């Protein structure tokens, strides 16, 4: 296939088109080889640069001064309309970014996550026990959803029994974000505030404010993430964080941590269900688990693309970028770059030579996922609990991987497995 520079893939490939996002890997492979930075169009979206090589992604991730994070849309005007101090952590830059990050780290830095790990482990073991004696289960609902949801609640100190509700909010946010694609029947409609509310009408902010109030009244006393947030001091002003800042941090964790970690775990388990030899290898040698998680992240990034806006004329990889141009970063592509990961970059292997260059699934530069350590720890705990109780996993007859509808995400909608438990 001939690929012309500037014009991108002859198929008109665009990561925001749902049909293209279903199986983008071949088109991305061709683009990496023939037109690693291309101009892509999907009207009425503005034209954007699509970046597909590992090294170019790194250059852009590192240069936050030139390439600003604009969240999950490529609506540059919408991003500009919000004053810098009012952006959430994802789309803000220094000096506003650091304090927003620091407040979240009270719950998700390695130290508080390690402290919460035994409680997450106990929860994961209970979850696995529920289906361990049956000979099959739909593992997204039974395993990949409840464990990350509980892990976030546990590090924060929110009631684990409220997790179903947290999950509803995440789903609503994702459904409304999927409207950013012209493939969505409601493209262009501004999601209403009610889109964020589940059927019972409760909003995450009302729920979280009530929780903070109960903390202040001394009704809840626990050594957890929310307590640390209430006691934290703003690094620049020395003052306490406001309720609004704490609520934003907590809400961001619920919104950004649930679906992503669920997809990570479900993608990983799907890889192992089609490679029973690797599942057995992991049962025998648990030291391979982190390699398995990294390899799953690399091949199947839960979030396939990130967006930036270029804010001054510059050049990357010999290609000019102009002020105001939207940029789409294909993590899914960079992670399979053969010049970095070798000719077998498309293969799921647990024995890649270390140190492997870090994959881009958690992003890079100052916006690297703040919850990366929690996500990896959650997946590790969840997989360990499964390996302890389940001897073999395989796909249910007729199972086909169908990814979630949202163009940004790659995770199976369902994962129907046949299970064989081991004696406890």
């Amino acid at each position, binding site marked *: 296939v001939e690929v012309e520079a500037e014009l991108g893939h002859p198929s008109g490939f665009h990561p925001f088109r749902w049909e293209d996002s279903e199986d983008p890997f071949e088109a991305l492979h061709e683009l990496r080889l023939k037109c690693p930075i291309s101009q892509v169009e999907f009207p009425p979206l503005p034209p954007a640069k699509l970046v597909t090589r590992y090294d170019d992604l790194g250059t852009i*991730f*590192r240069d936050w001064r030139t390439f600003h994070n604009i969240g999950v849309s490529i609506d540059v005007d919408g991003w500009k309309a919000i004053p810098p101090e009012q952006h959430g952590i994802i789309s803000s830059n220094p000096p506003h970014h*650091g304090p927003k990050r*620091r407040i979240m780290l009270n719950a998700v*830095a390695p*130290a508080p996550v390690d402290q919460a790990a035994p409680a997450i482990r106990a929860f994961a073991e209970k979850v696995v026990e529920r289906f361990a004696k049956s000979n099959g289960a739909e593992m997204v609902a039974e395993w990949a959803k409840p464990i990350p949801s509980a892990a976030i609640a546990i590090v924060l100190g929110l009631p684990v029994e409220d997790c179903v509700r947290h999950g509803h909010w995440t789903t609503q946010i994702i459904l409304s974000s999927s409207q950013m694609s012209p493939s969505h029947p409601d493209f262009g409609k501004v999601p209403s505030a009610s889109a964020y509310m589940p059927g019972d009408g409760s909003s995450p902010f009302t729920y979280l404010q009530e929780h903070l109030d109960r903390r202040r009244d001394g009704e809840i006393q626990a050594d957890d993430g929310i307590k640390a947030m209430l006691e934290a001091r703003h690094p620049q002003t020395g003052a306490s964080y406001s309720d609004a800042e704490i609520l934003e941090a907590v809400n961001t964790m619920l919104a950004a941590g649930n679906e992503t970690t669920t997809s990570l775990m479900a993608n990983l388990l799907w890889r192992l269900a089609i490679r029973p030899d690797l599942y057995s290898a992991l049962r025998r040698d648990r030291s391979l688990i982190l390699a398995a998680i990294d390899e799953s992240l690399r091949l199947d990034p839960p979030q396939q693309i990130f967006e930036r806006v270029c804010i001054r004329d510059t050049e990357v990889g010999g290609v000019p970028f102009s002020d105001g141009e939207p940029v789409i970063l294909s993590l899914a592509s960079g992670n399979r770059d053969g010049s970095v990961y070798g000719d077998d970059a498309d293969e799921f292997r647990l024995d890649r030579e270390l*140190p492997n260059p870090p994959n881009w699934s958690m992003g890079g530069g100052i916006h690297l996922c*703040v919850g990366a350590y929690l996500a990896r720890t959650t997946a590790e705990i969840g997989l360990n609990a499964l390996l302890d109780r389940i001897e073999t996993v395989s796909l249910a007859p007729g199972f086909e991987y169908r990814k979630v509808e949202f163009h940004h995400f790659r995770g199976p909608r369902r994962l129907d497995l046949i299970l064989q438990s081991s004696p406890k």
Partner: protein
Amino acid sequence: VTTPVEVVIDRGMCMGAGECVFTAGSLFQLDAEHKAVLIDVEAADDATILNAAASCPNFAISVLRDGRPVT
């Protein structure tokens, strides 16, 4: 022949986020005070070192060659 890079961690700036450890675990670790420490600068290639340093949200890690910052 280029001289090897030098990695400098500003302990006062480090807030224990662990992003450097996540990006290059063979290079960085968090110590008992949850501050980043360098384990082995030769355990990674230059690109990985740069990516790990650039992932610090608090700009606590500098990479120098011949005393000058590398970006």
